[in-house]
Every structure is written in C-alpha cells, then in structure tokens.
C-alpha cells in the first residue's frame, strides 16, 4: 500500500509530564515503540491515555520530557509541525469536520504533503478501505452516522501516510465486524509497511490481541509494561486496571 521508502519511525517518549492547571494528567510517562510495531496503551477512564496522545501530537503542551520520532525531538511542537514529522493522530470521539463534505475531510488529511498525485491516490485508497464513505463522497460529514464518522476519521489519518499513528479508541462506536477489520488493517499496515502504532483502547482484549507490546497507565503513571500475553495473564493487573 505504500512505498517502502517511507518506513515507519520509532517513537520514544521519555519522562513526559502534562498538567491541566492543578490537575496532573501525566506524571513522567516513558514509553518506547520500535518502528513497525504496535503498542497498546491501556488503563481505566481518566488514567491519562488521551492526555498522552494529545501531548505527543502537540494538541496539549506538555510540561517536560522528551518525545522522539525517529530520534528527532518533537517535544512541545505545534500539532501542525508534528504532523509534518510523520506522526498523525485519530482523536477520541471522531473529530471530523462536520461542515465539510466527506471528500473534503479526506483530502484535508493529505494536504500538508507536496506529492499531489500520491495525495489523490491515498484518498482513493481510503475510499476502497471504507465503502460506506465512497457512497457518500459529497455528503456533509454531519449527516454521517456515528460509525461512519469514525471511519472517516481513520481514513483521513491514513491519507496523511503517517510513519507513526496515534489511535485513540478507534473502535468507539464501530460495529464488531468493522472493529475486527480495523484491527486487522492496523496489524497489516505495521507488518507490510512498517507503520508504528500507539493504540489506546478501552477494549483491552481486542487491543492486546493485535499489539506487540502493552503499557498500562494509572493516574498518569506507567504501572506495567510488558508483552500482551503476560499482561493479560496478570490477574492483579486485570482486575485493578483492565477490567476483564
């Protein structure tokens, strides 16, 4: 699906601290995601998962720490610059631009890239991936169903041809079959193109099923970091943080 020249990049997070006023959302988080692999970030509600992704992508200014994409520090960069370093985010809860059409939303994803021909190609690939979108190209995104919007958000992130993809609860509101497909797709992209993925999921089970590595957050701190099977087998962890 993508040329091999655009290899995935490794993501390195060191001691990241993020606060909202008095609320400490991230308390020195360190995570390392090797290029071409999937790391699942798990944790209860309010653990700081979304805050982690938002801090990485620049939507929230982190207080201190380091964020390295392929060794390049993107800490504290504006989101528009982070995107250009090859790291894209699918925000929690869809984040499509309701007043634009499906097609415009998708095209936006690739606008920052200079390769026009490939941009168009990437949009068509997204349509191929999500047929419901293909049938609704000219419709305003606000008329889409919840699941269709989620597809649009995902498709749009892929149009950017990111090297690192930050997924915040991609299965939110998706039918089980689509969820399975998407997980499969993410896995395939990693395997085939070397995409690097940081995957936040409520649904720990399905996240761990595709991930190469798992990290558990609680109150803004990493409380566990291991391979999926070990995490899933840890009863304490499961009861305390993963809820299954």
């Amino acid at each position: 699906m993508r040329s091999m020249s655009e290899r995935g990049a490794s993501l390195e997070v060191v001691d990241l601290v993020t606060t909202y006023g008095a609320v400490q959302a991230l308390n020195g988080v360190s995570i390392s995601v090797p290029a071409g692999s999937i790391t699942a970030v798990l944790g209860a509600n309010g653990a700081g998962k979304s805050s982690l992704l938002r801090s990485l992508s620049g939507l929230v200014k982190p207080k201190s720490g380091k964020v390295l994409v392929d060794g390049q520090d993107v800490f504290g960069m504006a989101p528009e610059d982070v995107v250009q370093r090859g790291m894209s985010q699918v925000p929690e809860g869809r984040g499509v631009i309701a007043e634009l059409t499906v097609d415009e939303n998708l095209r936006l994803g690739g606008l920052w890239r200079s390769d026009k021909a490939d941009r168009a190609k990437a949009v068509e690939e997204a349509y191929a991936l999500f047929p419901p979108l293909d049938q609704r190209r000219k419709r305003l995104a606000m008329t889409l169903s919840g699941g269709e919007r989620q597809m649009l958000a995902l498709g749009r992130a892929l149009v950017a041809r990111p090297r690192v993809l930050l997924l915040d609860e991609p299965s939110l509101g998706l039918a089980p079959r689509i969820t399975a497909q998407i997980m499969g797709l993410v896995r395939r992209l990693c395997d085939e193109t070397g995409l690097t993925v940081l995957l936040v999921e409520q649904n720990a089970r399905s996240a761990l099923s595709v991930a190469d590595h798992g990290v558990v957050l609680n109150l803004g701190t990493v409380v566990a970091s291991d391979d999926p099977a070990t995490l899933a087998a840890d009863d304490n962890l499961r009861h305390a943080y993963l809820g299954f």
Partner: protein
Amino acid sequence: MDRFLSVTISGLSGGMIYAAVALSLVLIWRATRVVNFAQGAMAMFTTYLAFTVLEHGGSYWVAFPIALLTGLVLGAFVERVLVRPVENGPPLNAVVVTLGVFIFLQGLAGLLFGGRFRSFPAPFSNKNYNLGNVSTVSPFEIFIVLSVALVAALLFALFQYTDVGLRMRAAAFSGEVARMLGVRVGRMLTLGWALAAVAGSLAGILVAPSVFLHPNNMDGVFVFGFTAAVIGGLDSPVGAIVGGLGLGVLLSYVASYAGGDLQTLSALAVLVFILMVKPNGLFSTTATRRV
C-alpha cells in the same frame, strides 16, 4: 418605463457595493466565524490612505492598489494582534473587539484627516450612456460591476477549488482538528481577514465617490452589506453577490416608488421574510443533522 429601467440600473450598481461589503463579511465569517463590525471602518480608513496619495499628486491607479494593499495589511494586523487573543474566548468577545476597532478607527480617521466631507474621484466618467432617451449606466458603474464580480469570482474559486481554500474553511470550522491535520490555522485566519479586508477596501474605494469620504461614510453601507450577507447566507460568496444586488434594487425601488423613509423598514421586512423561510439565508445548505 424609462424611470423603472434607470431605477433598476442604479439599484444594481449600488447593490454591487453592498455585495462587496457582504463578500468581505462572508470571507471573514468563513475564515474565522467572526462577524467583523470594523469592516466598514477599515474600508473607510484605507480609502483615506488612498485619498492621501491622491492629495499628494498620486494617480488613481497608484492609490487604488494602495488602498487594497493597506487593506490587506490592516486586516492581517487586526486579526493577528487584536482578534487572535480573543478568538478562543467566548464568541462575543471578538465582536466587542471589532466594535472597539470600529470606534477607534473612526476616531483615528477624524483625528488624522479631519471630520469634514472629502470628495473622492471616480476613475472613469460617471456620466450615463444614453440608449435612445433612456439614460443607462456610466462607465464608472461598469467598472464597479466588473471589479466586484472579478474579486468575487476569484475568491469563490479560491475557497471552493483550491487547497488553501479548503484549509481556510477547515481552520474556521474546527481549528483544533485542522491543526491536527497539519493546517497552519493561525496563518489561515490571518489570511482570511487579510483577503476580506481587501474586498472591504474595494467596496470603500468604489463607494466613496457616491457618499463622499468622511469617518462615518461606510456606516450605512456596512449595515446594508451585512443585511445582504445574511440574506444570501453567510457561508456563501455567491449569496453575498445575489443578496447585495437584490437589496440594492429593492432599496432603489422603495426610494423611488414608496419614499426614502421606508428604505430601512423594507430592508428589515425582506430580511425577516427570507430568514423565516430559510433561517440560514438563501444559499445555505439545508441538510443539517442535529442528532
């Protein structure tokens, strides 16, 4: 019949001015979701700058681009320095800031250029051509129509067909999502204001020969320009043109056949009527999903 024709024609050429103001408001609305109450005052101010050039012996064709250029700079400046800090606050804060700018610019213009009426030249003759014994349009009016139509067409194309236009709209609708997609939202907002101010300046320099130049010369034009924009649908440049022309003709008919005192009331009546039928203006997209 003569009279009807000439009333219609003068309504259309006046309407073109409203269209230009409406266009500038539509642009700012599309670009930043702010209604710029300072638009008229900004146009007035740049027209004064053009006037100063003329005073110092400059030619109209030097003054004209200078007005548009300073409009560009002024628009960018106001957005960057004054509106930017309140853009993320409650929406009405930006409105009050633009009100402040509006009052400030009127004061500044009075202070720098004096309060009195100034005449402002038209670049072409304003004597009507005669068709038989019907007096029709003047070369200057043709110039008005052409220049506003050109600017409108360019801006429409910019928004609808170019990447920059798409970026600008994305930035306006949802700044945060747009940034996440690599759009330099700040720049887009500034660009939107700058372009809008150019359209506004165009209106200012085109209307000045008819209403003279003074610190309040755009007040009335602004109000009807805003009305036109709302009638057309604030999101639609085409709507701005149609709204402007329609309003111009209407006002001309009312002044001619019913009396000038009914002009504002009839504008109100038409506005209310149209909004009752189409609450988001004539050219709005109606497909909205609420849940």
